[in-house]
Protein backbone atom coordinates (compact mmCIF):
# COMPACT_ATOMS: atom_id res chain seq x y z
CA UNK A 1 0.00 0.00 0.00
CA UNK A 2 2.83 2.32 0.98
CA UNK A 3 4.54 1.43 -2.28
CA UNK A 4 1.55 2.47 -4.38
CA UNK A 5 1.14 5.87 -2.73
CA UNK A 6 4.81 6.71 -3.07
CA UNK A 7 4.79 5.69 -6.73
CA UNK A 8 1.75 7.72 -7.68
CA UNK A 9 3.02 10.82 -5.94
CA UNK A 10 5.10 13.19 -8.06
CA UNK A 11 8.63 13.91 -6.86
CA UNK A 12 8.06 17.62 -7.15
CA UNK A 13 4.76 19.44 -7.36
CA UNK A 14 4.97 23.15 -8.04
CA UNK A 15 1.62 24.90 -7.90
CA UNK A 16 1.30 28.63 -8.63
CA UNK A 17 4.57 29.51 -6.98
CA UNK A 18 5.50 33.18 -6.99
CA UNK A 19 8.42 35.03 -5.53
CA UNK A 20 9.01 38.76 -5.36
CA UNK A 21 12.20 40.52 -4.40
CA UNK A 22 10.91 44.00 -3.68
CA UNK A 23 9.45 45.29 -6.94
CA UNK A 24 11.04 42.59 -9.12
CA UNK A 25 9.16 39.42 -9.82
CA UNK A 26 11.51 36.45 -9.75
CA UNK A 27 8.83 33.80 -10.15
CA UNK A 28 5.38 34.45 -11.56
CA UNK A 29 2.76 31.75 -10.92
CA UNK A 30 4.95 28.85 -11.92
CA UNK A 31 3.29 25.44 -12.05
CA UNK A 32 4.60 22.04 -13.11
CA UNK A 33 5.27 18.66 -11.63
CA UNK A 34 7.94 16.04 -12.15
CA UNK A 35 7.29 12.34 -11.80
CA UNK A 36 9.54 9.28 -12.17
CA UNK A 37 11.37 8.47 -15.41
CA UNK A 38 12.06 12.00 -16.60
CA UNK A 39 15.18 14.02 -17.38
CA UNK A 40 13.88 17.55 -17.26
CA UNK A 41 15.86 20.53 -18.47
CA UNK A 42 14.93 23.82 -16.86
CA UNK A 43 16.25 26.20 -19.45
CA UNK A 44 16.40 29.95 -19.39
CA UNK A 45 18.77 32.89 -19.62
CA UNK A 46 20.61 34.22 -16.59
CA UNK A 47 18.19 35.95 -14.26
CA UNK A 48 15.15 34.07 -15.59
CA UNK A 49 14.34 32.60 -12.19
CA UNK A 50 15.96 29.15 -12.49
CA UNK A 51 18.03 29.48 -9.35
CA UNK A 52 15.18 31.03 -7.41
CA UNK A 53 12.98 28.10 -8.34
CA UNK A 54 15.65 25.58 -7.32
CA UNK A 55 16.26 27.37 -4.05
CA UNK A 56 12.55 27.28 -3.31
CA UNK A 57 12.55 23.54 -4.05
CA UNK A 58 15.55 23.02 -1.80
CA UNK A 59 13.97 24.85 1.10
CA UNK A 60 16.43 27.70 0.97
CA UNK A 61 13.96 30.45 0.22
CA UNK A 62 10.45 31.53 1.20
CA UNK A 63 7.85 31.82 -1.57
CA UNK A 64 4.10 32.13 -2.02
CA UNK A 65 2.02 29.34 -3.52
CA UNK A 66 2.14 25.59 -3.14
CA UNK A 67 5.32 23.60 -3.52
CA UNK A 68 5.88 20.10 -2.27
CA UNK A 69 8.85 17.82 -2.69
CA UNK A 70 8.05 14.17 -1.97
CA UNK A 71 4.76 15.44 -0.57
CA UNK A 72 6.47 17.68 1.96
CA UNK A 73 7.12 21.33 2.46
CA UNK A 74 10.84 21.82 1.65
CA UNK A 75 11.19 24.82 3.96
CA UNK A 76 10.34 22.82 7.08
CA UNK A 77 12.00 19.53 6.09
CA UNK A 78 15.20 20.49 4.26
CA UNK A 79 17.58 18.07 5.97
CA UNK A 80 15.09 15.19 5.80
CA UNK A 81 14.30 15.76 2.13
CA UNK A 82 17.97 15.61 1.29
CA UNK A 83 17.95 11.94 2.27
CA UNK A 84 15.45 11.39 -0.57
CA UNK A 85 16.95 13.59 -3.23
CA UNK A 86 20.52 14.31 -4.25
CA UNK A 87 21.66 17.75 -5.16
CA UNK A 88 24.68 19.33 -6.80
CA UNK A 89 24.58 23.09 -6.32
CA UNK A 90 28.00 23.69 -7.81
CA UNK A 91 30.56 21.18 -9.01
CA UNK A 92 33.39 23.35 -7.70
CA UNK A 93 32.15 23.07 -4.11
CA UNK A 94 33.87 19.97 -2.75
CA UNK A 95 36.08 20.80 0.26
CA UNK A 96 39.61 21.01 -1.11
CA UNK A 97 41.38 20.16 2.15
CA UNK A 98 39.86 16.68 2.29
CA UNK A 99 41.33 13.63 0.66
CA UNK A 100 39.08 11.55 -1.56
CA UNK A 101 39.11 8.74 1.01
CA UNK A 102 38.13 11.12 3.83
CA UNK A 103 35.29 12.47 1.74
CA UNK A 104 33.89 9.00 1.06
CA UNK A 105 34.21 8.07 4.75
CA UNK A 106 32.47 11.28 5.76
CA UNK A 107 29.63 10.66 3.30
CA UNK A 108 29.21 7.13 4.63
CA UNK A 109 28.98 8.50 8.18
CA UNK A 110 26.50 11.30 7.52
CA UNK A 111 24.34 10.05 4.65
CA UNK A 112 22.06 7.08 5.35
CA UNK A 113 21.59 6.39 1.62
CA UNK A 114 25.25 6.59 0.66
CA UNK A 115 26.86 3.41 -0.63
CA UNK A 116 30.62 3.69 -0.26
CA UNK A 117 31.31 0.54 -2.31
CA UNK A 118 29.33 1.95 -5.19
CA UNK A 119 31.28 5.20 -5.10
CA UNK A 120 34.55 3.26 -5.12
CA UNK A 121 33.35 1.24 -8.10
CA UNK A 122 32.39 4.44 -9.92
CA UNK A 123 35.83 5.90 -9.23
CA UNK A 124 37.69 2.75 -10.28
CA UNK A 125 37.90 3.73 -13.96
CA UNK A 126 39.22 7.19 -13.18
CA UNK A 127 42.74 8.34 -12.31
CA UNK A 128 41.36 9.59 -8.95
CA UNK A 129 43.18 8.01 -6.00
CA UNK A 130 41.70 7.60 -2.51
CA UNK A 131 44.73 9.36 -1.07
CA UNK A 132 44.58 12.39 -3.39
CA UNK A 133 43.76 15.73 -1.90
CA UNK A 134 40.66 17.11 -3.59
CA UNK A 135 42.27 20.52 -4.22
CA UNK A 136 45.05 18.79 -6.16
CA UNK A 137 42.56 17.37 -8.69
CA UNK A 138 41.85 19.08 -12.01
CA UNK A 139 38.49 20.73 -12.47
CA UNK A 140 37.30 17.90 -14.66
CA UNK A 141 38.35 15.30 -12.08
CA UNK A 142 36.65 17.24 -9.28
CA UNK A 143 33.47 17.16 -11.31
CA UNK A 144 33.89 13.45 -11.92
CA UNK A 145 34.46 12.88 -8.19
CA UNK A 146 31.45 14.95 -7.19
CA UNK A 147 29.25 13.09 -9.62
CA UNK A 148 30.57 9.71 -8.46
CA UNK A 149 29.78 10.66 -4.86
CA UNK A 150 26.30 11.87 -5.74
CA UNK A 151 25.53 8.85 -7.94
CA UNK A 152 26.45 6.56 -5.04
CA UNK A 153 23.58 8.03 -3.04
CA UNK A 154 20.56 5.82 -3.48
CA UNK A 155 17.85 8.40 -4.12
CA UNK A 156 15.28 8.64 -6.87
CA UNK A 157 15.56 12.30 -7.64
CA UNK A 158 18.67 14.19 -8.64
CA UNK A 159 18.84 17.96 -8.97
CA UNK A 160 21.74 19.61 -10.79
CA UNK A 161 22.23 23.36 -10.92
CA UNK A 162 24.26 24.39 -13.98
CA UNK A 163 26.33 21.23 -13.62
CA UNK A 164 28.57 21.63 -16.62
CA UNK A 165 29.30 25.33 -16.36
CA UNK A 166 32.89 26.01 -17.31
CA UNK A 167 33.76 22.44 -18.21
CA UNK A 168 35.39 21.43 -21.45
CA UNK A 169 33.53 19.37 -23.99
CA UNK A 170 35.05 15.98 -23.06
CA UNK A 171 34.25 16.30 -19.38
CA UNK A 172 30.78 17.58 -20.21
CA UNK A 173 30.03 14.65 -22.49
CA UNK A 174 31.37 12.19 -19.93
CA UNK A 175 29.22 13.82 -17.23
CA UNK A 176 26.08 13.32 -19.32
CA UNK A 177 26.98 9.74 -20.16
CA UNK A 178 27.50 8.93 -16.48
CA UNK A 179 24.09 10.41 -15.63
CA UNK A 180 22.31 8.30 -18.19
CA UNK A 181 24.31 5.09 -17.72
CA UNK A 182 24.94 5.08 -13.98
CA UNK A 183 21.88 6.78 -12.59
CA UNK A 184 18.86 7.13 -14.79
CA UNK A 185 16.09 4.54 -14.99
CA UNK A 186 12.29 4.54 -15.13
CA UNK A 187 11.92 4.95 -11.36
CA UNK A 188 14.22 7.93 -11.17
CA UNK A 189 14.26 11.49 -12.40
CA UNK A 190 16.79 14.23 -12.98
CA UNK A 191 16.19 17.96 -13.03
CA UNK A 192 18.94 20.00 -14.69
CA UNK A 193 19.08 23.76 -14.98
CA UNK A 194 21.19 25.43 -17.62
CA UNK A 195 21.44 28.52 -19.73
CA UNK A 196 23.48 26.72 -22.37
CA UNK A 197 20.84 24.72 -24.17
CA UNK A 198 23.01 22.87 -26.66
CA UNK A 199 25.02 21.37 -23.80
CA UNK A 200 22.34 19.04 -22.51
CA UNK A 201 19.80 18.82 -25.31
CA UNK A 202 20.61 15.24 -26.25
CA UNK A 203 19.88 13.64 -22.88
CA UNK A 204 16.65 15.45 -21.97
CA UNK A 205 13.22 13.80 -22.11
CA UNK A 206 11.37 16.98 -21.28
CA UNK A 207 11.98 20.68 -21.59
CA UNK A 208 10.83 23.59 -19.45
CA UNK A 209 11.60 27.05 -20.80
CA UNK A 210 11.62 29.76 -18.21
CA UNK A 211 11.81 33.47 -18.86
CA UNK A 212 11.19 36.46 -16.61
CA UNK A 213 9.98 34.14 -13.89
CA UNK A 214 7.34 32.40 -16.01
CA UNK A 215 7.31 29.02 -17.74
CA UNK A 216 7.02 29.76 -21.46
CA UNK A 217 7.07 26.18 -22.71
CA UNK A 218 6.63 22.78 -21.05
CA UNK A 219 6.85 19.92 -23.51
CA UNK A 220 8.11 16.35 -23.78
CA UNK A 221 10.96 15.90 -26.23
CA UNK A 222 8.90 13.27 -28.07
CA UNK A 223 6.02 15.70 -28.61
CA UNK A 224 8.34 18.46 -29.63
CA UNK A 225 8.99 17.07 -33.10
CA UNK A 226 5.27 16.58 -33.68
CA UNK A 227 4.31 20.03 -32.58
CA UNK A 228 7.13 22.12 -33.99
CA UNK A 229 8.85 22.03 -37.34
CA UNK A 230 11.50 24.08 -39.02
CA UNK A 231 11.32 24.92 -42.71
CA UNK A 232 14.36 25.91 -44.75
CA UNK A 233 13.61 27.83 -47.91
CA UNK A 234 15.75 29.76 -50.35
CA UNK A 235 14.17 33.02 -51.33
CA UNK A 236 10.73 34.03 -50.15
CA UNK A 237 7.76 31.80 -49.53
CA UNK A 238 4.04 32.46 -49.75
CA UNK A 239 1.47 30.21 -48.07
CA UNK A 240 -2.00 29.97 -49.53
CA UNK A 241 -3.58 29.19 -46.18
CA UNK A 242 -3.59 32.31 -43.94
CA UNK A 243 -3.57 30.00 -40.87
CA UNK A 244 -0.07 28.83 -41.71
CA UNK A 245 2.11 31.45 -40.12
CA UNK A 246 5.62 31.01 -38.78
CA UNK A 247 6.10 31.81 -35.11
CA UNK A 248 9.65 32.80 -35.89
CA UNK A 249 11.58 33.74 -38.95
CA UNK A 250 15.29 34.14 -39.45
CA UNK A 251 17.10 35.42 -42.51
CA UNK A 252 20.44 33.71 -43.11
CA UNK A 253 22.92 34.45 -45.95
CA UNK A 254 21.90 31.51 -48.15
CA UNK A 255 18.44 30.60 -46.89
CA UNK A 256 15.57 31.53 -44.59
CA UNK A 257 14.56 29.55 -41.50
CA UNK A 258 10.93 29.47 -40.45
CA UNK A 259 9.64 27.82 -37.29
CA UNK A 260 6.04 26.59 -37.22
CA UNK A 261 3.88 25.41 -34.39
CA UNK A 262 1.15 22.85 -35.01
CA UNK A 263 1.49 22.77 -38.80
CA UNK A 264 1.55 19.49 -40.74
CA UNK A 265 5.12 18.94 -41.97
CA UNK A 266 3.75 17.47 -45.20
CA UNK A 267 2.18 20.82 -46.06
CA UNK A 268 5.42 22.61 -45.30
CA UNK A 269 7.48 20.16 -47.33
CA UNK A 270 5.92 21.58 -50.51
CA UNK A 271 7.79 24.82 -49.89
CA UNK A 272 11.24 23.63 -48.89
CA UNK A 273 13.18 21.31 -46.62
CA UNK A 274 11.50 20.40 -43.30
CA UNK A 275 13.73 19.52 -40.36
CA UNK A 276 13.09 19.28 -36.66
CA UNK A 277 14.08 22.43 -34.81
CA UNK A 278 16.79 22.36 -32.18
CA UNK A 279 16.01 23.42 -28.62
CA UNK A 280 17.95 26.56 -29.27
CA UNK A 281 15.72 27.39 -32.26
CA UNK A 282 12.65 26.78 -30.14
CA UNK A 283 13.96 28.76 -27.23
CA UNK A 284 14.53 31.76 -29.44
CA UNK A 285 11.21 31.23 -31.26
CA UNK A 286 9.09 30.94 -28.12
CA UNK A 287 10.79 33.75 -26.29
CA UNK A 288 10.84 36.48 -28.91
Amino acid at each position, binding site marked *: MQEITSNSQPFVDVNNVSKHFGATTALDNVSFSIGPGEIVGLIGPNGAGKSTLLKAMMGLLKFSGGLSVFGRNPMANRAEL*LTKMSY*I*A*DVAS*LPGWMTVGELLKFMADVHPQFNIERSKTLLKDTPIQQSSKIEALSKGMKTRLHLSVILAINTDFLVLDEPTLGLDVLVRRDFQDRLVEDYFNQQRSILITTHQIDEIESILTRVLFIRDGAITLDINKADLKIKFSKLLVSGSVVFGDPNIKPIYQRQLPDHTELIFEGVDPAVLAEHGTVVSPSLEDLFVATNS
Partner: protein
Amino acid sequence: MTVFIALLKREISEHKSLWRVPLILLGMALLVKMSFAFGNLSIDFDVPDGFNIESTVDSWLATAIGKALSVMNYIVMIVMFLVAIFYALSSLYDERKDQSVLFWRSLPISDTQTVLAKLTVATVLVPLTILVLQSVIAMVFLGLQGFDYLSSYLVSALSQLGKVLLWSMLPTIAWCLLCSQVANKNPFLLALVSPVLVILMDWLFLNGVLADTVVINRLTGVDSYTLTVLVIGLIFSVSCLVFTVARRGERV
Protein backbone atom coordinates in the same frame (compact mmCIF):
# COMPACT_ATOMS: atom_id res chain seq x y z
CA MET B 1 25.36 10.39 17.00
CA THR B 2 27.53 8.91 14.23
CA VAL B 3 26.67 12.00 12.22
CA PHE B 4 27.68 14.34 15.03
CA ILE B 5 30.98 12.52 15.58
CA ALA B 6 31.66 12.67 11.84
CA LEU B 7 31.00 16.42 11.99
CA LEU B 8 33.44 16.83 14.89
CA LYS B 9 36.06 14.78 13.03
CA ARG B 10 35.56 16.97 10.01
CA GLU B 11 36.20 20.12 12.07
CA ILE B 12 39.38 18.69 13.55
CA SER B 13 40.83 17.62 10.24
CA GLU B 14 39.80 20.86 8.53
CA HIS B 15 41.17 23.16 11.24
CA LYS B 16 44.60 21.77 11.84
CA SER B 17 45.57 24.36 14.46
CA LEU B 18 43.22 22.53 16.85
CA TRP B 19 45.74 19.71 17.22
CA ARG B 20 48.94 21.29 15.90
CA VAL B 21 49.06 24.03 18.52
CA PRO B 22 48.75 21.60 21.49
CA LEU B 23 51.62 19.59 19.99
CA ILE B 24 53.74 22.72 19.71
CA LEU B 25 52.91 23.63 23.33
CA LEU B 26 53.92 20.13 24.43
CA GLY B 27 57.20 20.53 22.56
CA MET B 28 57.72 23.82 24.32
CA ALA B 29 57.10 22.19 27.71
CA LEU B 30 59.63 19.47 26.87
CA LEU B 31 62.22 22.15 26.08
CA VAL B 32 61.59 23.86 29.40
CA LYS B 33 61.83 20.52 31.20
CA MET B 34 65.08 19.74 29.39
CA SER B 35 66.60 23.02 30.57
CA PHE B 36 65.68 21.93 34.11
CA ALA B 37 67.09 18.47 33.53
CA PHE B 38 70.47 19.96 32.68
CA GLY B 39 70.22 21.94 35.90
CA ASN B 40 69.45 18.71 37.74
CA LEU B 41 72.65 17.12 36.50
CA SER B 42 74.78 19.58 38.40
CA ILE B 43 73.00 18.76 41.66
CA ASP B 44 73.91 15.11 41.28
CA PHE B 45 77.54 15.97 41.69
CA ASP B 46 78.92 14.92 45.05
CA VAL B 47 78.96 17.84 47.34
CA PRO B 48 81.59 17.73 50.14
CA ASP B 49 80.24 17.31 53.68
CA GLY B 50 79.56 20.56 55.33
CA PHE B 51 78.70 22.13 52.05
CA ASN B 52 75.73 19.88 51.59
CA ILE B 53 72.87 22.16 50.85
CA GLU B 54 71.01 19.48 48.99
CA SER B 55 67.75 19.95 50.81
CA THR B 56 67.72 23.67 50.13
CA VAL B 57 68.56 23.17 46.49
CA ASP B 58 65.83 20.58 46.21
CA SER B 59 63.19 22.83 47.61
CA TRP B 60 64.35 25.71 45.45
CA LEU B 61 64.13 23.49 42.40
CA ALA B 62 60.73 22.22 43.40
CA THR B 63 59.49 25.77 43.62
CA ALA B 64 61.09 26.71 40.33
CA ILE B 65 59.51 23.72 38.62
CA GLY B 66 56.26 24.43 40.36
CA LYS B 67 56.39 28.00 39.13
CA ALA B 68 57.33 26.92 35.59
CA LEU B 69 54.41 24.51 35.67
CA SER B 70 51.96 27.21 36.71
CA VAL B 71 53.26 29.45 33.95
CA MET B 72 52.94 26.62 31.42
CA ASN B 73 49.39 25.87 32.59
CA TYR B 74 48.47 29.49 32.12
CA ILE B 75 50.09 29.70 28.68
CA VAL B 76 48.32 26.51 27.61
CA MET B 77 44.96 27.91 28.66
CA ILE B 78 45.40 31.32 27.03
CA VAL B 79 46.85 29.94 23.79
CA MET B 80 44.17 27.27 23.44
CA PHE B 81 41.42 29.81 24.08
CA LEU B 82 42.91 31.95 21.33
CA VAL B 83 42.93 28.87 19.11
CA ALA B 84 39.24 28.36 19.92
CA ILE B 85 38.43 32.00 19.13
CA PHE B 86 40.25 31.96 15.81
CA TYR B 87 38.70 28.61 14.98
CA ALA B 88 35.20 29.98 15.67
CA LEU B 89 35.91 33.11 13.63
CA SER B 90 37.12 31.21 10.59
CA SER B 91 34.98 28.07 10.58
CA LEU B 92 31.76 29.35 9.03
CA TYR B 93 33.49 32.07 7.02
CA ASP B 94 35.94 29.67 5.36
CA GLU B 95 33.09 27.41 4.27
CA ARG B 96 31.52 30.27 2.40
CA LYS B 97 34.78 31.56 1.01
CA ASP B 98 35.82 28.23 -0.56
CA GLN B 99 32.21 27.52 -1.63
CA SER B 100 32.20 24.20 0.21
CA VAL B 101 29.13 25.40 2.12
CA LEU B 102 27.19 24.54 -1.04
CA PHE B 103 28.35 20.95 -0.70
CA TRP B 104 27.84 20.70 3.06
CA ARG B 105 24.34 22.05 2.74
CA SER B 106 23.48 19.57 -0.01
CA LEU B 107 23.77 16.81 2.61
CA PRO B 108 21.01 15.79 5.01
CA ILE B 109 22.57 17.67 7.92
CA SER B 110 20.62 20.49 9.53
CA ASP B 111 22.23 23.88 10.07
CA THR B 112 21.58 23.50 13.79
CA GLN B 113 23.65 20.30 13.85
CA THR B 114 26.52 21.93 11.99
CA VAL B 115 26.62 25.02 14.19
CA LEU B 116 26.33 22.91 17.36
CA ALA B 117 29.23 20.74 16.19
CA LYS B 118 31.36 23.85 15.75
CA LEU B 119 30.29 25.15 19.16
CA THR B 120 31.14 21.77 20.72
CA VAL B 121 34.62 21.84 19.23
CA ALA B 122 35.34 25.29 20.68
CA THR B 123 33.66 24.91 24.08
CA VAL B 124 34.06 21.20 24.87
CA LEU B 125 36.93 19.73 22.86
CA VAL B 126 39.27 22.70 23.36
CA PRO B 127 38.81 22.79 27.18
CA LEU B 128 39.28 19.00 27.29
CA THR B 129 42.47 19.41 25.27
CA ILE B 130 43.60 22.03 27.79
CA LEU B 131 43.11 19.63 30.72
CA VAL B 132 44.76 16.71 28.96
CA LEU B 133 47.68 18.85 27.83
CA GLN B 134 48.15 20.35 31.30
CA SER B 135 48.12 16.85 32.80
CA VAL B 136 50.71 15.57 30.34
CA ILE B 137 52.92 18.59 31.01
CA ALA B 138 52.60 18.06 34.79
CA MET B 139 53.73 14.45 34.35
CA VAL B 140 56.62 15.59 32.18
CA PHE B 141 57.70 18.17 34.76
CA LEU B 142 57.15 16.24 37.97
CA GLY B 143 57.37 12.59 36.96
CA LEU B 144 55.50 10.33 39.36
CA GLN B 145 54.91 13.22 41.75
CA GLY B 146 52.70 14.52 38.97
CA PHE B 147 49.86 12.29 40.21
CA ASP B 148 49.80 14.06 43.57
CA TYR B 149 50.00 17.41 41.89
CA LEU B 150 47.24 16.57 39.41
CA SER B 151 44.86 15.20 42.02
CA SER B 152 44.74 18.62 43.65
CA TYR B 153 45.31 20.68 40.49
CA LEU B 154 42.59 19.11 38.36
CA VAL B 155 39.90 19.75 40.99
CA SER B 156 40.67 23.46 41.11
CA ALA B 157 41.34 23.62 37.38
CA LEU B 158 37.97 22.04 36.61
CA SER B 159 36.03 24.61 38.59
CA GLN B 160 38.18 27.46 37.34
CA LEU B 161 37.94 26.34 33.72
CA GLY B 162 34.21 25.71 34.13
CA LYS B 163 33.69 29.28 35.32
CA VAL B 164 35.78 30.79 32.54
CA LEU B 165 33.87 28.64 30.06
CA LEU B 166 30.37 29.55 31.14
CA TRP B 167 30.93 33.18 31.98
CA SER B 168 33.46 34.22 29.33
CA MET B 169 34.17 31.61 26.65
CA LEU B 170 30.64 30.63 25.70
CA PRO B 171 29.45 34.18 24.90
CA THR B 172 32.75 34.94 23.15
CA ILE B 173 32.62 31.81 20.98
CA ALA B 174 28.93 32.28 20.18
CA TRP B 175 29.67 35.86 19.15
CA CYS B 176 32.63 34.75 17.02
CA LEU B 177 30.51 32.08 15.28
CA LEU B 178 27.89 34.70 14.49
CA CYS B 179 30.53 37.07 13.09
CA SER B 180 32.01 34.21 11.09
CA GLN B 181 28.59 33.59 9.54
CA VAL B 182 27.56 37.17 8.78
CA ALA B 183 30.88 38.82 7.88
CA ASN B 184 31.27 39.68 4.22
CA LYS B 185 34.98 40.39 4.21
CA ASN B 186 36.66 40.05 7.59
CA PRO B 187 35.02 38.21 10.51
CA PHE B 188 37.94 39.10 12.78
CA LEU B 189 37.45 42.83 12.29
CA LEU B 190 33.70 42.53 12.69
CA ALA B 191 34.06 40.57 15.92
CA LEU B 192 36.55 43.08 17.27
CA VAL B 193 35.20 46.40 16.03
CA SER B 194 31.65 46.16 17.30
CA PRO B 195 32.61 45.45 20.95
CA VAL B 196 35.13 48.29 20.78
CA LEU B 197 32.39 50.59 19.48
CA VAL B 198 30.07 49.47 22.27
CA ILE B 199 32.79 50.20 24.83
CA LEU B 200 33.51 53.63 23.37
CA MET B 201 29.85 54.64 23.17
CA ASP B 202 29.35 53.32 26.65
CA TRP B 203 32.30 55.19 28.15
CA LEU B 204 31.12 58.34 26.46
CA PHE B 205 27.46 58.16 27.41
CA LEU B 206 26.92 55.56 30.13
CA ASN B 207 30.01 55.91 32.28
CA GLY B 208 31.20 52.47 31.25
CA VAL B 209 28.63 50.47 33.23
CA LEU B 210 27.61 48.33 30.29
CA ALA B 211 31.12 47.94 28.88
CA ASP B 212 32.69 46.95 32.17
CA THR B 213 30.10 44.37 33.09
CA VAL B 214 29.15 42.97 29.73
CA VAL B 215 32.08 43.31 27.36
CA ILE B 216 35.41 43.74 29.09
CA ASN B 217 34.62 41.27 31.85
CA ARG B 218 34.09 38.57 29.28
CA LEU B 219 37.55 39.01 27.86
CA THR B 220 39.69 39.86 30.86
CA GLY B 221 37.99 37.33 33.08
CA VAL B 222 34.97 38.07 35.18
CA ASP B 223 36.03 39.10 38.66
CA SER B 224 32.71 38.42 40.27
CA TYR B 225 30.97 35.33 38.99
CA THR B 226 27.47 36.55 39.68
CA LEU B 227 24.34 34.91 38.43
CA THR B 228 23.19 38.03 36.57
CA VAL B 229 26.35 38.10 34.47
CA LEU B 230 25.95 34.39 33.74
CA VAL B 231 22.31 34.73 32.72
CA ILE B 232 23.02 37.73 30.49
CA GLY B 233 25.89 35.77 28.92
CA LEU B 234 23.74 32.71 28.31
CA ILE B 235 20.92 34.71 26.75
CA PHE B 236 23.45 36.50 24.57
CA SER B 237 25.06 33.19 23.53
CA VAL B 238 21.76 31.53 22.65
CA SER B 239 20.64 34.56 20.62
CA CYS B 240 23.92 34.58 18.72
CA LEU B 241 23.63 30.86 17.95
CA VAL B 242 19.98 31.07 16.88
CA PHE B 243 20.81 33.96 14.60
CA THR B 244 23.83 32.10 13.19
CA VAL B 245 21.71 29.05 12.34
CA ALA B 246 19.04 31.24 10.74
CA ARG B 247 21.58 33.12 8.64
CA ARG B 248 23.26 29.93 7.48
CA GLY B 249 19.84 28.77 6.30
CA GLU B 250 19.35 31.90 4.25
CA ARG B 251 22.68 31.81 2.49
CA VAL B 252 22.91 29.62 -0.52
